[in-house]
């Protein structure tokens, strides 16, 4: 290995607007992600839709994680260890597409976000590195 794991992980903190799904996040978000995964089953989706808060009582999520899920605050879910492919089970159950759900994390309206994508997407210029501002 040419690079220490500490150096490897430290670089990830320098990317603007991005939470890399590291082991630390995977550990913190374990039950958040496993809860989300449970929504793959139709019978669980029905129970979840009937009473979201009651459904969460069966899962050992932190109060912050529960609030973030109930509020559909996906940036907060990412901060608390959620992974987007798992969180996708929540927004799919809500009937949202990836594009619709992803746009909620950007501070843009769905329409503006979609227009940005049609125009070629977000440029990497200026959002590669916090430290270097490039």
């Amino acid at each position: 290995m040419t690079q220490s794991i500490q150096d490897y992980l430290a670089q990830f903190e320098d990317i603007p607007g991005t939470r890399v799904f590291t082991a630390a996040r995977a550990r913190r978000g374990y039950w958040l992600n496993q809860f989300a995964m449970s929504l793959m089953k139709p019978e669980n989706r029905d129970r979840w839709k009937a009473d979201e808060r009651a459904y969460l009582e069966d899962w050992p999520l932190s109060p912050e994680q529960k609030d973030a899920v109930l509020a559909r605050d996906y940036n907060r879910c990412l901060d608390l260890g959620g992974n987007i492919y798992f969180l996708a089970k929540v927004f799919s159950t809500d009937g949202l597409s990836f594009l619709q759900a992803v746009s909620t994390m950007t501070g843009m309206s769905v329409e503006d976000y979609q227009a940005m994508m049609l125009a070629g997407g977000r440029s990497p210029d200026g959002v590669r590195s916090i430290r270097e501002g490039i």
Partner: protein
Amino acid sequence: MMARITAGIGSSHIPLLGVASDFDKTGEDYWRDCFAGYDWTKRWMAQQRPDVVILVYNDHASAFDMRFIPTFAIGCGERFRPADEGWGPRAVPDVIGHPDLAWHIAQCLVLDEFDMTIINEMDVDHGLTVPLSMMFGKPDAWPCRIIPLAVNVVTYPPPTGNRCWLLGEAIARAVESFPEDINVQIWGTGGMSHQLQGPRAGLINKAWDNRFLDDLSADPQRLRRIPHIEYLRETGSEGIEMVMWLIMRGALGPRVRQLHRHYHVPASNTAVGHIVLEKLT
């Protein structure tokens, strides 16, 4: 006669491409150009008629949840069904495996010091079934056997690009020692630039993506050395899927010829990339 790898394919595997195919939307304005770039490949594939495709992809919280995170896993089962990803399984044919070749590869890889996870039963998600739709359209049955090869690119660290390349080389050695006269292709899927999370979501990097496509034939040694941080900075948090293309490229050996190439932005949040590479001997 031994088995031989004849060609490699790279392709995005965006779930919405599967939706467009399944619901016959490919003629709509949004999709026409994106799908047109695969027409050449569908015709070429009908002539090539591979016996087996080794399909490198990643699972997106469908067959694997957080309980197990295999870095490299090979599907050795007889049959794999399309996964229910939360809205019912795709209405596409079951994937028929090739257990003889898959087990042969798995055993060779372990002796070659790649300690594979072996999967006998699993469902396969859009990462595997979308490329099949893009290359074969909508047949009643997929026209070849398929060996799923799943890579962890979700939980960090995923394998390095160089490790993926070396795995590709080892797969090629394994295939070439399988005593049957069969035509094998290897596909690497995922990417290209995209970010599905956080305030930076929607990132697309056409220049970087196209250099990557160029260098699959022009300078593949450069691609082996791209560190994870470069994928993250330049191609978005989900652009890391492109390391899977390097398994394909490593399996083709030193010399390839680009037969076809396509690049289109956007499909949903993502840049669509596609390439067909012929292995030269």
